[in-house]
C-alpha cells in the first residue's frame, strides 16, 4: 500500500556505490554534510539578521538561537540552583523511550497478528484493510486525553496508556507490510509445499513468515520512529509531565524567555528517534545477515 518493495534495484545501486567508496571517505562525507548544515543555519541567521529581512519569518536569537547557545543550554540549570538541563531531559527521554518501546512491541505484535489473520481470509482483508488505512487519519493527539483518562479509570498507569497510543501508530506499517510480505513467497514454493500436503500452519511458519522478514523489518524501522512520535504526542495533551512531550509543553510556555531549552528538548527527541531506528536497523542486519533492503 504505502510502503512497498519496488525499491530493490535502487537499494542495490546504493549499496554498490558505498562499496566503492571506502569507509573513511564515507565518514568524511558525513562530516562535511553536517558542517555544511550547521553553516547553513548560522549563515541564514546572519544574512537575515544583517539585512533585516523578515520573510518568511523574523530571525533573531529567539526564533533561531545560535547553535552553540543550544548546546550550551544542556549545561544550564532549569531552575536556579537546580540540576543542569541535560539531567531532566535524559530522565524524560528514558521515560518516553519506555513508552515508545512498549508501544512498539505491542503495535508490532498486534500488526503482525492482524496480517496473519488477513492473509488467510480474502473476505476479512477486503472488509478490514480500508479501515486499517483509515485508522491512521484519526489524530491520536485528539483522542489521547480520552484514552489516558479511560484507561486510568481502569487502573492503568499513565505511561502504559501512552504506550497504547504509540501502538496505534506502530501497528499500521507492520500490518500493511507484513501482509505484503506474507503474500510475497514464490507461487511455485506454495505449490511445492502443497505437494508435501503441508498444513496451513506449516506453510505459515516455513514459507510465509521467512518470506515476510525483509518486509517486516522495513515496517519495523518505520514503526520505531512512529512509536517515538506516538509517545511524544500522546503525552502532550494527556498532561503527563515526566516525558519529552511534557518537556515540550513546559518549555514551549517559556519559549520567549528561554528558546534554547525547547530547541535542546527537540534535539533530544530527534536523537531518541534516531537511536530506536538505528537499533532496529542493526537488528535487521544481524537477523537477515545481509545488507538492509532499504530505509524509510
Amino acid at each position: 500500500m504505502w510502503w512497498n518493495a519496488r525499491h530493490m534495484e535502487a537499494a542495490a545501486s546504493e549499496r554498490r556505490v558505498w562499496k566503492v567508496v571506502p569507509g573513511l571517505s564515507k565518514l568524511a562525507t558525513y562530516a562535511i554534510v553536517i558542517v555544511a548544515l550547521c553553516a547553513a543555519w548560522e549563515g541564514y541567521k546572519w544574512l537575515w539578521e544583517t539585512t533585516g529581512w523578515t520573510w518568511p519569518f523574523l530571525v533573531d536569537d529567539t526564533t533561531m538561537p545560535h547553535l552553540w547557545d543550544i548546546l550550551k543550554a544542556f549545561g544550564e540549570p532549569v531552575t536556579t540552583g537546580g540540576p543542569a538541563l541535560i539531567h531532566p531531559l535524559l530522565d524524560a527521554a528514558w521515560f518516553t523511550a519506555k513508552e515508545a518501546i512498549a508501544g512498539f512491541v505491542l503495535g508490532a505484535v498486534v500488526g503482525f497478528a492482524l496480517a496473519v489473520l488477513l492473509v488467510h481470509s480474502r473476505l476479512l482483508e477486503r472488509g478490514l484493510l480500508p479501515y486499517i488505512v483509515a485508522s491512521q487519519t484519526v489524530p491520536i493527539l485528539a483522542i489521547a486525553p480520552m484514552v489516558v483518562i479511560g484507561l486510568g479509570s481502569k487502573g492503568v498507569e499513565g505511561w502504559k496508556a501512552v504506550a497504547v497510543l504509540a501502538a496505534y501508530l506502530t501497528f499500521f506499517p507492520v500490518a500493511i507490510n507484513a501482509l505484503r510480505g506474507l503474500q510475497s513467497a514464490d507461487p511455485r514454493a506454495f505449490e511445492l509445499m502443497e505437494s508435501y500436503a503441508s498444513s496451513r500452519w506449516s506453510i505459515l511458519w516455513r514459507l510465509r513468515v521467512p518470506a515476510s522478514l525483509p518486509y517486516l523489518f522495513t515496517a519495523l524501522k518505520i514503526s520505531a520512529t512512529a512509536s517515538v512520535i506516538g509517545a511524544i504526542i500522546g503525552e502532550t495533551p494527556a498532561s503527563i509531565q515526566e516525558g519529552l512531550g511534557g518537556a515540550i509543553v513546559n518549555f514551549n510556555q517559556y519559549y520567549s524567555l528561554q528558546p534554547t531549552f525547547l530547541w535542546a528538548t527537540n534535539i533530544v527527541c530527534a536523537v531518541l528517534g534516531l537511536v530506536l531506528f538505528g537499533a532496529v536497523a542493526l537488528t535487521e542486519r544481524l537477523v537477515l545477515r545481509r545488507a538492509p533492503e532499504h530505509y524509510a
Partner: protein
Amino acid sequence: MDWVPAVVVFLVGIGLWQGLTTLFDVETFLLPKPSEIAQAFWEDKATLWDYGLYTFKEAAGGFVLGSSLGILTALVLARFRTVGLALMPFAVAANAVPIIAFAPITNNWFGLLNPFSKMAIAAVLCFFPVMVNTLRGLTSVNPRAIELMRSYAAGNASVFRHVRIPSSLPFMFTGLKVAAVLSMIGAIVGEYFGGPTNALGVSILNDTQLFNFPRAWAGIALASAFGIAFYGAVALAERLTTSWHPSTRGFRGE
C-alpha cells in the same frame, strides 16, 4: 463488489459501538455513542465544517509546498547522483526524527494565528516521504531503458522527460499518499499548540476541556474524514495519471 465487505464491516462496527456503549453504560467522556456524536455534529454542522475547511486549507497548503519542494529536490539529486547518494543517509535520518515535535517551534516562528505556522510543519512532514520515494523512482529505472535512450543519442533532459519521470510516478504517488495523511495530522498537531479559534484542532481541544465530548468526537471524525478524502483524492489522481501502470489493474495494486 470489492467494497461490500467494507460496507458490512462499517455497519456492524457502528452497530456494535452503539449497542455495547448502551449495554455497558459507557460514560460519555470515555466513548460517546455514535448517535450522540452524529447528533453533536448535526447541531453544529455549519461551524464544524468551516473549522474543518480552515484546517484542511492549512494542510493542503503544507502538502503543496512540502511535496513540490520534495519533488524538486529529488529531481536535482537524481541529476547529480553522487551528491544524491551521499545525502541519502541524511534523508533517512531526517525521516527517523519525530518532526512533529517541532510544531511549537514553527508556531513561534510564524505566530500562533498565522496559518503559515501550520503549513510549515505540514510541509516539513510531507517533504521527506515525497522526496525519498521520488528519488527512488527516478534512480531505479531499468538500466536497459537508459541505454536505449543513449543509443538514440538522447540528452539528459530527454532521458528525464521520457524515462525517469514517467517511471518514477508510481513511487512519487506512494510518497504523496503518505504526505496527504501526514499533512492533515501535522496541521491538527500544530493547532493543538495554539491557533485561531476557528481551527478544527483548537475546537477539539476546547471541547475536550469543556467536557463536551460528543462534539470533540465529531471534530475528530471530521478531521479523519478530511484525511481520508485527501488520501482518496491523491489515490484518484494516481489512477488517472498512471492508468498505464500494470499495478493499477488489480485491487492489490497500490
